[in-house]
């Protein structure tokens, strides 16, 4: 009897601890969403539409929003084609020397500190150009985006049953046609998911933009070779000011960023679970 209850007691404690720790793990997200909403909503309500369209002097973050869109668009244009091709290569030749090295390289790049990417791009683009620019920022973001898209592409293609490959080759379809015309469209959902998740992630990056984008918050960006602002970068700058106004603006901008991120990420993520071929 005595031994039995000690074991049961340990078991009880264990269950409680595990449950408690699990709640502790996910609770911060809830609290973060709550804090951002609670602090950001009043700011947006108060300032209305000018918050989204006005420049800094009008207490608005319009240029930052435009900047983020521009940067995401540009970095996708630069990074997606390359990443897609790399992902397909890694899928097709997983065991070749180049293939294995590529996969290892992708893993390394996935975990690369983002600030170092920014510093690198500053060295090779910003300084020679003589100015901060959307191009530089987009390039830095593209470098960060690439491993994600490549890995998602490869994994999505790997989900396709082997029978489709066999059938294509059995019919005499060449490798290029088989992969790009038959298999890739089959993996379309997984690949698109990967692309959208990577775009959402890159929209929230700050460190790579610190030394490349420059910041532009009074007027809307008009050219890719000029400095540009971004929402995360703006928030970072505003947090470090002592004025309460700057802090309110930071919360408001955070809410905008959060809504954008969750709005893209959650539906995409949910649909990923559903992908079954």
């Amino acid at each position: 009897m005595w031994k039995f209850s000690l074991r049961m007691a340990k078991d009880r404690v264990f269950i409680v601890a595990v449950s408690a720790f699990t709640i502790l793990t996910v609770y911060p997200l809830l609290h973060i969403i709550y804090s951002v909403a609670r602090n950001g909503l009043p700011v947006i309500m108060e300032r209305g539409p000018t918050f989204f369209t006005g420049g800094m002097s009008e207490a608005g973050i319009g240029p930052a929003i435009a900047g983020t869109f521009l940067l995401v668009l540009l970095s996708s244009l630069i990074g997606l084609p390359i990443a897609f091709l790399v992902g397909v290569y890694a899928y097709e030749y997983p065991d070749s020397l180049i293939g294995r090295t590529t996969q290892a390289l992708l893993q390394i790049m996935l975990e690369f500190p983002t600030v170092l990417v920014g510093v690198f791009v500053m060295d090779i683009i910003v300084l020679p150009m003589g100015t901060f620019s959307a191009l530089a920022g987009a390039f830095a973001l593209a470098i960060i985006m690439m491993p994600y898209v490549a890995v998602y592409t490869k994994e999505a293609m790997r989900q396709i049953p082997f029978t489709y490959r066999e059938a294509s080759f059995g019919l005499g379809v060449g490798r290029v046609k088989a992969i790009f015309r038959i298999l890739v469209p089959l993996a379309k959902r997984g690949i698109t998911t990967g692309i959208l998740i990577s775009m959402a992630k890159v929209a929230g990056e700050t460190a790579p933009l610190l030394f490349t984008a420059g910041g532009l918050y009074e007027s809307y960006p008009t050219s890719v070779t000029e400095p540009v602002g971004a929402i995360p970068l703006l928030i970072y700058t505003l947090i470090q000011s002592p004025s309460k106004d700057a802090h309110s603006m930071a919360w408001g901008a955070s809410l905008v960023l959060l809504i954008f991120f969750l709005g893209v990420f959650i539906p995409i993520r949910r649909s990923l679970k559903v992908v079954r071929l």
Partner: protein
Amino acid sequence: MITKKTVFGLVIVAIILAAGAYACMSKESSKGLVSIRTTGATFPQYQIQKWIEIYLKEHPNVKIEYEGGGSGHGQEAFLQGLTHIGRTDPPVRESTWNQFKKTGDQPLQFPEVVGAVVVSYNVPGLNSLKLSKDALVGIFIGNIIYWDDPVLKELNPNANLPHKEIIVVHRSDSSGTTSIFTTYMSLINKTWKSRVGAGKTVEWPTDSMGRGLGGKGNPGVVTVLMQTPYSICYTELSFALEEGLSVAEIENAQGAFVKPTKNTIKAAVSAVSSHIPSPSEGYMEDLSQLLNAPGEDSYPIVAFTHLLVWKNLGGKHYSTKEAKAIKDFLFWILTDGQKEENLAPGYVGLPPEVAEMGLSAVNSIHE
């Protein structure tokens, strides 16, 4: 195979493309728009921002982007061509000036406003603080450890000084404000001069004692001060006014204890005949000319803060539109901007002959 997911994905892509198109469209509608960028010292932050705001009202198509970063960053951004107008508190050093000239263009430096470095503190229950020269140095060099040190008690017999360690907040970035403050400290105390010296970045003795904190930019320092009880810092007067911080009375050259106000700053400026060299030889200016000024009412830590522009030889750094806008803006700063109603709290206008030097420089910019 148009599924819900495909539609959703297309919608997202469409939104992004639309936003991009909007950004390009605004390019069309903003044909008349000029974007100017100014980077550097946070010492004149509130003044520059006020000027930008007022100027924007009369010139809505000239968008002036304010960027901080400190005097060091301002000089560097100016050198690299990453900004149009650099801002630096201390005059640029000769070596840096030569680097500027190596770009093939002629740099111009001139003051735009006068400000004061104040000593601000955050001690609950303490509303006024007198600091003699020795006390000031003692605190920042680390010899005076507690707020209720006998030296401080003697200077402030009625004050509520607690037995807590003094936390010294300083700049973590390359700062003109630090330069002004440490130059003053070197001026009034030999031990400081040999041990710490002057410069945009120095090694603060209190850091190694565990009683030091760094903040980025004047805003950063003030943020840290406000969040850290029993701390003390040095910052520009406007920040103390803007955030309602307590400011110490400092002993001036005459031995009187003065609070930093518009009048005490003006007294310092008028007590000294400022010598501003030609703007094309800005490195020759002496940072310490307004420091420790004589006069009963003079506040001791007063300084000019400067703007850096290019003469734009051969259109090297500015397009015609930009050059025109820059000239116009700077001209306005040195004339209308110096009027009392356009000055921000904590700053004092330039003596007329100093403003003249700046105007001659601005007029010489090539379009």
